């Protein structure tokens, strides 16, 4: 008898994913600038969604305040560029560190709260952070600011890309941001997948399913929640900084937008399938398709999103991927430990 997580579909999916990543890397050679920009948005949303899924779907931490880490991450990058004269790319890690620093007091405060109170608590922290940042006059206060021209004119790595693809500078900057977003998304998914295959993945699932029982088998539930919250905040901060390297213009309302950085992200995870790595991937594709299809309908767009979310929650509580996976037994990222022996029931 032996224990394995490996499946044939899993191996095929792994190879296809590698091929897809290789294709995505080469894409700037033949795709238009609009496609690259759209993919940048999709990849950063995918990263945020994977992180929120890690928090809520695996850690049971339903945060509605992730925009705090996007916004602070972005502002820390701006501070690095404007106040310290750093290259925007080199200032991105500052975003992660700032978000990490904020996540520690946030966790102290929010972990005293349970369920819906936790969600609201994180939202309050995000609003407070937004109001404080809006007081920071050097970074534009309430109206915001742009990255200075001299900082965006020779960003590290842009020149070789410009020469390689024969692009104008603004387009080359988009390619660089796109590659970074691709790297961040791939690394995030790979890291979460590795975590889930580790024994910590089992512990996370145990904490999510039943915290009391998890304690009774010796799992340090508090430490696990802290770890998940801090890791998610750090990478969310990096993502926020990267998003605003690409837009090059920031304001507190945009950077701390609960709609853009949390509501859409929750929508993506919920309709895709919470608690599964495949969920946010499918979710972000559906979300993007809906956004394109409904772009001209104004308020109807948000109403439709809400309606779809409600319908999915009622009829497919484990999301579209859950529905698909239950019907077909398909798992692209298998994490289930199976005891292999011929006379066991329920091999899936």
């Amino acid at each position, binding site marked *: 008898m032996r*224990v394995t997580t490996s499946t044939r579909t899993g191996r095929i999916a792994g190879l296809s994913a590698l091929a897809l990543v290789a294709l995505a890397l080469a894409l700037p050679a033949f795709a238009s600038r609009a496609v690259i920009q759209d993919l940048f948005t999709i990849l950063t949303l995918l990263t945020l969604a994977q992180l929120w899924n890690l928090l809520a779907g695996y850690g049971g931490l339903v945060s509605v305040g992730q925009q705090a880490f996007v916004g602070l991450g972005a502002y820390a990058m701006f501070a690095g560029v404007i106040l310290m004269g750093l290259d925007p790319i080199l200032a991105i890690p500052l975003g992660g560190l700032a978000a990490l620093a904020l996540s520690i007091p946030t966790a102290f405060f929010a972990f005293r709260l349970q369920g819906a109170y936790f969600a609201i608590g994180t939202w309050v922290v995000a609003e407070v952070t937004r109001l404080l940042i809006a007081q920071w006059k050097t970074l534009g206060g309430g109206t915001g600011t742009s990255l200075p021209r001299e900082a965006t004119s020779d960003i590290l790595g842009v020149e070789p890309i410009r020469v390689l693809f024969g692009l104008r500078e603004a387009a080359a900057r988009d390619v660089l941001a796109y590659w970074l977003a691709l790297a961040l998304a791939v690394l995030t998914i790979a890291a979460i997948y590795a975590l889930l295959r580790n024994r910590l993945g089992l512990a996370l699932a*145990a904490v999510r399913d039943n915290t009391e*029982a*998890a304690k009774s088998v*010796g799992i340090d539930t508090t430490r696990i929640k802290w770890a998940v919250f801090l890791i998610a905040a750090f990478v969310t901060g990096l993502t926020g900084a990267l998003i605003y390297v690409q837009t090059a213009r920031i304001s507190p309302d945009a950077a701390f937008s609960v709609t853009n950085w949390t509501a859409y992200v929750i929508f993506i995870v919920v309709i895709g399938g919470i608690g599964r790595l495949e969920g946010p991937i499918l979710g972000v594709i559906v979300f993007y398709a809906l956004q394109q299809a409904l772009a001209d309908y104004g308020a109807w767009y948000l109403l439709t999103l809400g309606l779809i979310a409600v319908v999915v929650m009622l009829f497919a509580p484990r999301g579209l991927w859950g529905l698909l996976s239950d019907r077909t037994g398909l798992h692209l990222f298998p994490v289930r*430990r199976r*005891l292999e022996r011929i006379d*066991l*029931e329920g091999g899936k």
Partner: protein
Amino acid sequence: MILTLTDVTKSFGALKVADGVSFSVPQGQALGIIGPNGAGKSTLFNLITGNIAPNSGRITFLGQDVTQRPAMARVRMGVGRSFQIPQPFEGLTVYENLAVAASFGQGRSEAAVTEDCIAILRDTELLRLANTQAGALSLLDRKRLELARAMATGPKLLLLDEIAGGLTEGECQALVATIKGLHARGMTIIWIEHVLHALTAVVERLLVLDFGKVIALGAPTEIMASKEVREIYLGMEA
């Protein structure tokens, strides 16, 4: 003595749920706990596991004072427990339920506990269900999983909370046989149970709890013959 409680007291407001409780359990013994509903039996377990802290008194386990130690540390020292209402990790398979308990309860890697988990699955007759999601189990199998998961943490003392409750006679006997087997191999057990014949088939000593107080402690035959116990617990006129 593997476990000793000395004058342990716990109140919830004005209600004393443990009132000067003292008793010891020698290595390898099986102790049964009976008492009316609300007598403080599950609270006693929560005090032993560290899920709640006593207001006063002392709890020693394996010769160490554990009164102030958190639940998690006691699990790692070897206090394993099953819940009255089975609380499986529903999204995990039966095998994964054991693997996570063994790995974290014993502080070992996942690969190092595989053999242990398989042996426990075999002992508790769950091996055929190893790859089944725990949420899909029947009541008997959920009870078995409670027992198996507690065993997986590598306990030196096993606390069973009404594990036979709600089972049919046949199922109950199957479970009793499993527990008897564990005890025969030297496991120290404290078992709360309303199904008396299941309990007396295994335990060497019985403790009777009423309003948080120990009112009798001794051999099962002695206890069951005692007039006081029959009045309080069985509601019988002696």
